[in-house]
């Protein structure tokens, strides 16, 4: 298996606060990898460091064998490493259609764009009914679908999703996870999934990492971690 993303000994700080120390994470091509951890552990920071939104103080970010640590965010996006940030950041005063179109902002392959547009609407049929509606009027679940749909429009090779299920009704959580699995299975898109909903995340992932106050404390097969007593106690509500 070849490596899609490799974070090598990453240190990230916000001013005096060190958010990540010596983090090593690997996502292989075609895999779903989940990153679980408590609030404030540094999960979002890890994704931001990968997508170039924050710069690592030391360490390397490699994507498909290339060192992308110094590249601009736009160059990283154009290479297919796509970050769907936490908190449903959609463009509220634009239409659903405009939101999706902006996902393909850096692309010029018209045919590919319209294929991906159709594909995104196939995954999220609710969006098709609301194309002309302004995105701010969507429900929370629909906004999350739009955010993922917009990321798909960037044609990700690796899609990083930051807490896609946050604040959604259980039935929608199920649907979002189902679609994540489908995206991975149908197009081979690698996925790095950050979740507080560890139960669901471990159920769909191949491998998992546990992040505690900026350090990776556990990693391994998702199924193994799910039965790990420490993980069960801290993140799965057993015990």
């Amino acid at each position, binding site marked *: 298996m070849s490596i899609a993303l490799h974070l090598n000994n990453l240190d990230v700080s916000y001013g005096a606060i060190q958010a990540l120390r010596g983090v090593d994470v690997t996502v292989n091509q075609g895999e779903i990898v989940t990153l679980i951890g408590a609030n404030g552990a540094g999960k979002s920071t890890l994704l931001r460091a990968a*997508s170039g939104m924050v710069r690592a103080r030391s360490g390397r970010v490699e994507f498909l064998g290339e060192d992308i640590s110094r590249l601009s965010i*736009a160059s990283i*996006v154009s290479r297919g490493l796509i970050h769907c940030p936490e908190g449903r950041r959609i463009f509220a005063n634009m239409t659903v259609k405009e939101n999706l179109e*902006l996902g393909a902002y850096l692309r010029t392959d018209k045919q590919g764009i319209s294929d991906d547009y159709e594909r995104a609407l196939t995954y999220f049929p609710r969006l098709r009914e609301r194309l002309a509606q302004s995105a701010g009027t969507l429900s929370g679940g629909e906004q999350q679908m739009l955010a993922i749909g917009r990321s798909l429009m960037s044609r990700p090779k690796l899609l990083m999703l930051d807490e896609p299920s946050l604040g959604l009704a259980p039935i929608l959580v199920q649907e979002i996870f189902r679609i994540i699995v489908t995206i991975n299975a149908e197009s081979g898109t690698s996925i790095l999934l950050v979740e507080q909903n560890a139960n669901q995340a471990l159920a769909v992932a191949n491998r998992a990492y546990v992040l505690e106050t900026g350090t990776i404390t556990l990693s391994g097969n998702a199924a193994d971690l799910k039965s790990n007593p420490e993980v069960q106690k801290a993140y799965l509500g057993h015990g």
Partner: protein
Amino acid sequence: MTKPINYVIALAILGVLATLSVILPIYMDDLVYRVLMLSGIAVIMAVSLNLINGFTGQFSIGHAGFQAVGAYVGAALTVYGHNDIFGHLPKDGQIGTGWMSLAVGAGPMLASMLAGGLAAALIGYIVGLPSLRLRGDYLAIVTLGFGEIIRVIVENNDSVGGPRGFSGNLDIGVSVPAITNFFWVFGVAIVVILFARNLRFSISGLQYLAVREDEVAAQAVGIDTTRTKVNAFVIGSFFAGVGGSLFAHYEQTILISSFNFVRSFDFVTIVVLGGLGSVTGSIISALVLTALPEILRSSLGAQFNQYRLVSYALLLIVMMLVRPQGIFGRGELSFAKLRNKFKKPATQ
């Protein structure tokens, strides 16, 4: 996009503008004509500021400073370039109002607008790049300070009249020429409006709105947010400079004090009242807020000036309370929408 019909329409509009430019000064009341011209310039200023404050969500409070740059650079060009380039203009700058005046004034007007616009754009780039890199309100602080710098530079520069104002140069006997007319003011206004609307509704223009809506999301789809903000700021500054040149060659005497913070605040008021991001709102608001004070001034006399700022501030406060998104919000007035409004009751 460039269908033959569009050229026909463009030519027709130019024809109408030129005709009005010849007719209006003859038949229109002087005060009304003056209000019309100042309103047209205010529309240019407001729509260009809206590109910065409305479309990309930045906060410039120094738009009059960029207008000053355009006014002084543009006027300096026509005055000091008189002997070498614009010798066909009369030295007293009075080119009259007939059809011939259109042809006589066209060259110097275009050159002056371009020079003023480019100078303002260049300074916009220098001022904008460092402050737009940073988040927060740096742009507001920097644009505010920039207005002061311009004032100090002009007041200490005798070749543009220093604190006495600039109306020409006595030594060479050349006045700032009266080459601004209806054609140029409203021609430029139309260009700015079309430009802004095109930005608002085209996909490439969506990047500007995206930056205002959510910077993180904009970055996530690969938009270079700093560059987008700088672009909008430079383009907005360019048109402010063009507006400055138009203003200078209309008034023929410019005082640095007419481009002070109060003037910048007027433009911000216009844009906020019309609705941040709404081109229609900026246009209507610019027309009303320019015409109204002029009318009140002519009926109430000079004492009105004392109350103008207070009434603007009150207007803003009332607006914030009653309708914080501005009169038009982010919406636009379009004929298609109007038609739908009228249709709806019929179909129900």
